[in-house]
């Protein structure tokens, strides 16, 4: 049985090289760094352009629900918190997901998908809670994913389409050019139907 002899020395060299490279600090190549910085600079440049053109801006937090991207004004947002260790409350309406403990404070969480008749997705570690508040109310909204914050010109927010009906119709503020659905946090917070009155009795 004649077999091609294995190049043991070559293999050894390669393994040693790998060992060496692991021991050294991993340094990104110069070109890669450059391209990264360039991209960032471009992104910043776009935003500044927008800001200079328009005067009135509003800070929006963007988050995903089902396949859509929604937005809430950041002035109503206390903070964003990962959904963990939540407790289901029995005897509450179906849109109330449950309650969570945020640093010692008990906050109720509402699932907006129930209002908008959106398809359900299984809850997981990646789900987040956006805690919104005003002077009267404070509760959490369930979000599938947090996209980030964005400054938007007020003009950019257009009135919602006429065809929108259902319970959630009143909660919409408008839709942006990039198809972000902006929610009216003030209305949601003021809505009496969300308040579960049983606890007051």
């Amino acid at each position, binding site marked *: 049985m004649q077999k091609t002899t294995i190049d043991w020395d070559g293999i050894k060299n390669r393994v040693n090289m790998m060992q060496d490279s692991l021991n050294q600090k991993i340094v990104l190549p110069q070109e890669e760094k450059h391209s990264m910085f360039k991209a*960032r600079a471009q992104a*910043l440049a776009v935003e500044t352009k927008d800001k200079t053109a328009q005067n009135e801006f509003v*800070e929006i*937090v963007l988050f995903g629900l089902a396949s859509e991207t929604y937005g809430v004004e*950041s*002035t109503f*947002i206390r*903070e*964003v*918190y*990962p959904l963990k260790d939540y407790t289901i409350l029995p005897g509450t309406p179906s849109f109330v997901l449950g309650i969570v403990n945020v640093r010692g404070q008990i906050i109720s969480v509402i699932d907006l998908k129930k209002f908008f008749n959106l398809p359900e997705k299984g809850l997981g570690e*990646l789900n*987040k809670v956006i805690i919104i508040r005003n002077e009267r109310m404070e509760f959490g909204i369930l979000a599938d994913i*947090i996209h*980030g*914050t964005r400054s938007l010109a007020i003009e950019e927010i257009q009135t919602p389409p006429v065809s929108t009906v259902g319970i959630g119709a009143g909660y919409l503020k408008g839709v942006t050019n990039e198809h972000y659905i902006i929610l009216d946090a003030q209305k949601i917070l003021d809505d009496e139907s969300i308040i579960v009155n049983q606890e007051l009795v």
Partner: protein
Amino acid sequence: MRYFNNLSTRTKLLFSFGLIWLLFLVVIIIAYQGLQSITQSEKKLHDVNFQIALELRELRSHQNFNRAAILDMMLTREKSEQLALEKIINERGQAINDIVEKLSKLAMDPLFQNQLKELENEIGVYRQTRKDEILLIQNGKIDDAQRLGTTLQKDRFEKIRSVSTEMGNRASKEAYNQLALDMQHANSAIILFILFGIVTLIFSIAIIMLLNRTIAQPLNEITKIAARIGEGDLDIELQVVERNDEVGILLQSFSSMIKALKRMAASAQKIAAGDLTGSIVPQSEKDILGNAFLQMLNNLRRIMKDIMEGVNLLGSSASEILASTTQVASGSAETATAISETTSTVEEVRQAAQLSSQKASRVSENAQQVAQITQTSQQAVEETISGMKEIQNQMEAVANTIVRLSEQSQQIGGIIALVTDVADQSNLLAVNAAIEAAKAGEQGKGFAVVAQEIKGLAQQSKQATMQVRNILNDVQKATSAAVMATEQTSKSVENGVKQSTQVGVSIQKMADSSSKAVDAATQIVASSQQQVVGMDQIGIAMNNINQAGMENAASMVQAEKAANGLNELGHKLKLLVEQYKV
């Protein structure tokens, strides 16, 4: 008579003895009745007639005594004595009255009763007169009394005496008559008794003779016949009497027995004469003699058949033997020529054996060389096996190392999950920072940029972890492939060990067979040498055989003669056996 003969012996005996007993009973009754009548008349004699006579005698004696007492009274002058006597006389008178009364009860005869009445009257008259007489005596008129006593009273007394005497005589006479009559009765009873006794005796004798004739005589005859049969004499003619009793049945049985015996005897005579044809019919299943005869006949027939067949066979065999001996005689000459041919063949075989001995020794040398070669190759195989085992151990170490590598990749995976989580939290933190910055208004704007940067970094680190995870997946797959390759190699090595072991076993077998070949070759050499010696011995033996052949030819002539004799014997036997009819 015929009916009597037909009765069974028990009935006969019962009948005969019953008759005799009956006659005896009649005799006994007659005797008893005679005796009875005699006894009765005797009793009457004693109780009536003799009693009457005795009473009358007593009466007379009382009368006499009274008369004597009157006379005494006359003689005595004393008053007291007279009174005592009178008293006695009265007592006696009373006794006479008693007797008279007794007599009237005893006899019923009218004549006797009349006489008794007369007597009673006389006694009454006499008593009246006696009273007068006693009165005379008491008054002292003795002479008047004497006169009265010697005349009137004396006549009366005489008359009483004569009447009573006559009565007593009559009673006595009657008793004698009765006695004579009894005598006559007894005599006639004795005559009857004797007569019946004689009749019974005659009758008994007649019955005994009858029984003797009907039972004893035929039995005696049968006994004699049985004795003759016992001696073997079967020439007997038994006249059969038509009787249904035991004797008749015995006679019939004897007759049939004699017939059966005669039939048997006839069969035996036929067999003795040599005629085995025909058959014997046994009387019954229990007929031992008949069955035995039948079996004997069958056996004899079979034996005779066998003997006949044997004789025929003997005859034909004898003629065959004769033919064979002739052939053998001519064959022995051929044998002699064959033997000389065999001798030359033996010499050729001897030379061939020497040649094979030489070849065998060469084979032995070759086999020894083969044995040495196999030993060296066996060592080589053992070394190969140990090398293979070494490889297997190392393969195992390699497999362990790969497994360790796999485990470490898994640890790296865990670290990556941690980093992902950190990146996620950083992202969230950036969002919160942005919100806070927005709340701060104009002063927070710089902070908002920092927050944006942090968000970008978090996203980058997330992407990096994704890449690392992909690489780790590749590494995992490569590790699995390496494990499989190692396993394959290990199996190949195992197969190699197995095959090497088999080769070792084969070589061992080869060594064994070559050593056997060495032994076999040595044995062949030895046996070829023995063969040569044996061939020499065969040559000598062939010479001996030649001589023996000649002797055989001589004895064959004698055998031929013997076969001739045998043939003649067969013929004779055949003639003998043919006398029997089967």
